[in-house]
């Protein structure tokens, strides 16, 4: 690549640059695409990449083999992942030591290494390509599939696969009104949780009075259990930037901000690099592509406050202030950042814009249901076999996601519930899993699509504990500005804690529902308004678990500390001593090869012995 980036001054320049970039790639005989997303990075994928580079250099094969680190491929659990072309061979669970063998066998001889292939957990068969893996097969990967074709730190990669052509099309063929009309026909709704029609937001912002307007990308993905925004921004940052530019053109903004969680260091880094590269090529700045449109942007890090995912709190935070929401009697599209008209969309929403412009609104509207169009990325996590990012057309039944793609619960257990929508969503029982993932259908069932987290829970998960978990989360994250949220969640947590600790009384359940109603109707922002959902949905679908805790002082899942005792099954215990060594409280005694015993007066019920025992000898009573 040339050191000094040629400035792309027109659409013609861009097309020619793309041609040049494409032709420069053709010389490689083999292509290795290794995932470098946060998930695979945590599985030490960088060491694997380094090992390949070192090994190729040693064998003088650097010229013929292209090694590319890309963003997240989605199947994080199996990482580090690699796709090898030609042949599209999919290897997983890689170690640096595998590099030599892969080069010798697969690259040079064309032989597939069986042990590195993925094993289908259902059929136990080895699978050769990504397309044959059940996890990928049932998906419709419109956005995620792009991740494997680009190095997130290379604008050239993005341009080569057609990047910034949607922007070029917008600037040359579309008026701002036409862009909004196109997005309207596509039926795109906000992917951040609310599901608000994107075009309506843009149109209102465009017509709001004022010269100065802003676009913001909300990458403050605070929902625990959701990480699709991280994967897009980290894996394909230019897609988000291009989406924001098209949006800015539509509403008449010249300045944009990406507000990204500080807990996503790789996303922050890649977004900054992408922005810098776009500037160097002249794709950010004045008179972009010679179309008379000027736009620039800034990356701002969040401070680790969940409430800053709320639009007005986020804007306060961008202004350098405490992230407290304000009443939205005047919408942010008219009075947003620094009191100027502002359009805020989340990462996935922005990322959907360029393909809508490139492929046409009808293409997007052709997927999904009547009220929810396109594809949506879900983070499938929890007690499920295949965890990772899943992109499906809206309207796909939850059952397909959890069982066909996810492979069902781990360890052969039964799926009990599926939690969707993060702390604002709810828990749905097994018999509701035929519900389609659709903004309206899930809302009607007492949950929501939210930002797209799907956490699978099995019989070892206590639903009252889950409600307590979310309340504790929300109590901690409530900014404290309005009373219903600050005190209401506090009181609800107090009651649920009473229930999990054996002090619950039947009348408290009614009090809980009453409080939930007040918090939901009187809170200032979405955090408080939706805070009761985890409690209400578990009360609605799992009343028997609350009753067992309250009336029988029993936790059926064996989770709530105050209601359980740990014992060792003398018949199963072989005296290996693992639990004795693991117990931090010195509560387990026993001789080698003899059954051990837990001293109940010392036991703190931390559960560590249960998780460490390989012989199922620890019983929870």
């Amino acid at each position, binding site marked *: 690549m040339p050191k000094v980036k040629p400035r792309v001054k027109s659409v013609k320049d861009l097309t020619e640059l793309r041609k040049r970039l494409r032709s420069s790639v053709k010389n490689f005989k083999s292509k290795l695409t290794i995932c470098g997303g*946060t*998930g695979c*990075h*945590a*599985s030490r994928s*960088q060491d694997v990449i380094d090992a390949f580079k070192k090994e190729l250099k040693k064998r003088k094969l650097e010229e013929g083999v292209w090694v590319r680190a890309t963003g997240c491929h989605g*199947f*994080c*659990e199996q990482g580090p992942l690699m796709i090898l072309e030609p042949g599209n061979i999919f290897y997983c669970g890689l170690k640096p030591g595998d590099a030599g063998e892969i080069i010798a066998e697969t690259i040079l001889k064309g032989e597939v290494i069986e042990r590195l292939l993925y094993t289908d957990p259902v059929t136990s068969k080895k699978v050769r390509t990504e397309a044959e893996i059940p996890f990928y097969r049932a998906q419709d990967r419109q956005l995620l599939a792009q991740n494997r074709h680009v190095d997130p730190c290379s604008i050239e990669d993005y341009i080569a696969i057609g990047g910034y052509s949607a922007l070029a099309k917008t600037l040359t063929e579309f008026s701002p009104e036409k862009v909004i009309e196109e997005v309207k026909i596509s039926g795109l709704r906000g992917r951040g949780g609310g599901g608000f029609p994107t075009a309506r937001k843009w149109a209102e912002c465009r017509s709001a009075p004022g010269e100065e307007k802003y676009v913001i990308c909300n990458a403050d*993905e605070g*929902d*625990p*259990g*959701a*990480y699709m925004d*991280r*994967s897009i921004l980290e894996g394909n940052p230019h897609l988000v930037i291009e989406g924001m530019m098209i949006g800015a053109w539509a509403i008449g903004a010249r300045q944009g901000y990406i507000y990204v969680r*500080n*807990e996503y*260091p*790789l996303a922050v*880094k890649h977004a900054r690099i992408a922005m810098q590269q776009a500037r160097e090529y002249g794709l950010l700045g004045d008179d972009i592509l010679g179309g008379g449109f000027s736009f620039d942007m800034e990356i*701002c*890090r*969040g*401070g*680790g*406050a*969940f409430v800053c995912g709320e639009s007005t709190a986020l804007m306060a*935070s*961008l202004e*350098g202030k*405490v*992230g407290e929401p304000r009443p939205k009697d005047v919408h942010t599209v008219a009075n947003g950042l620094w009191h100027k008209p502002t359009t805020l969309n989340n990462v996935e929403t922005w990322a959907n814009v360029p393909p809508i412009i490139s492929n046409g609104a009808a293409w997007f509207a052709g997927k999904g249901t009547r009220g929810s169009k396109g594809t949506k990325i879900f*983070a499938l*996590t*929890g*007690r499920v076999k295949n*965890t*990772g990012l899943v992109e499906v057309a809206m309207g796909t039944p939850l059952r397909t996601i959890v069982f066909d793609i996810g492979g069902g619960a781990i360890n052969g257990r039964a799926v009990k519930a599926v*939690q969707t929508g*993060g702390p604002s969503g709810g828990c749905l029982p097994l018999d509701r899993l035929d519900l389609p993932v659709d903004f309206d259908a899930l809302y009607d069932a007492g949950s929501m699509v939210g930002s797209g*987290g799907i*956490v699978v829970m099995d019989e070892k*998960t206590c639903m009252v504990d*889950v409600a307590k*978990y979310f309340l504790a989360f929300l*109590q*901690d994250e409530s*900014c404290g500005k309005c009373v219903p949220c600050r005190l209401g969640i506090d009181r609800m*947590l107090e009651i649920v*804690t009473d229930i999990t600790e054996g002090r619950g009384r039947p009348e408290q359940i009614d009090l809980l529902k009453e409080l939930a109603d007040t918090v939901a109707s009187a809170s200032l922002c979405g955090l408080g308004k939706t805070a009761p959902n985890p409690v209400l949905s578990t009360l609605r679908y799992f009343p028997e678990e609350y009753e067992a805790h309250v009336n029988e002082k029993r936790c059926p899942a064996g989770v709530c500390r105050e209601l359980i005792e740990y014992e060792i099954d003398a018949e199963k215990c072989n005296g290996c001593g*693992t639990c004795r060594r*693991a117990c*931090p409280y010195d509560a387990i005694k026993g001789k080698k090869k003899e059954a051990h015993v837990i001293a109940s007066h010392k036991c703190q019920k*931390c*559960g*560590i012995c249960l*998780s*460490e025992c390989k012989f199922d000898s620890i019983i929870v009573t």
Partner: protein
Amino acid sequence: MSVLTLESILKGRRSQPHQLIEVLHDVQERYRHIPEEDMRIVSRELGVPLIEVYRVANFYKAFSLKPRGRNVITICTGTACHVRGSNLLSNQVLGQLGISPGDTTEDGQLTLEQVNCLGACALGPVVVLNGTYYKHMTPSKLRSLINSVNEKGIEDTDDAKGKTKGKKRQRSH
């Protein structure tokens, strides 16, 4: 990791109140907490009242007002990690070192923090030691990790892997 001075942190940001959070991030990265003296300087240089600087530093979880240990262990307590037993990991640290999230050991060797989600949910439960991620953690793996810190006194400041900011207050359960 390049050493930032307060002077270089403030460069190009003076008199721009909206830069407060970015500045505090850099101060936190530099000193591992936000010292009072620095708050005063930041207040003066950005033109933000000291009470506002304090309020922001106190509000966001990324900032710590008290010094942290030489090593920081962060336990992810996101929903996915929670249902896979991340609470056992906090129990492990409590049992092994007697510290709760937000606390630092008396010798200043180790601080325990919690974070609500690191977005590495497929690998849960996740623990981060000084910016390096450890996946599928169990109490015994964590025990060994803590032992290795105490033996080697490691301070791996691999900035490329990114630093992870966590919580500074203890969760109420």
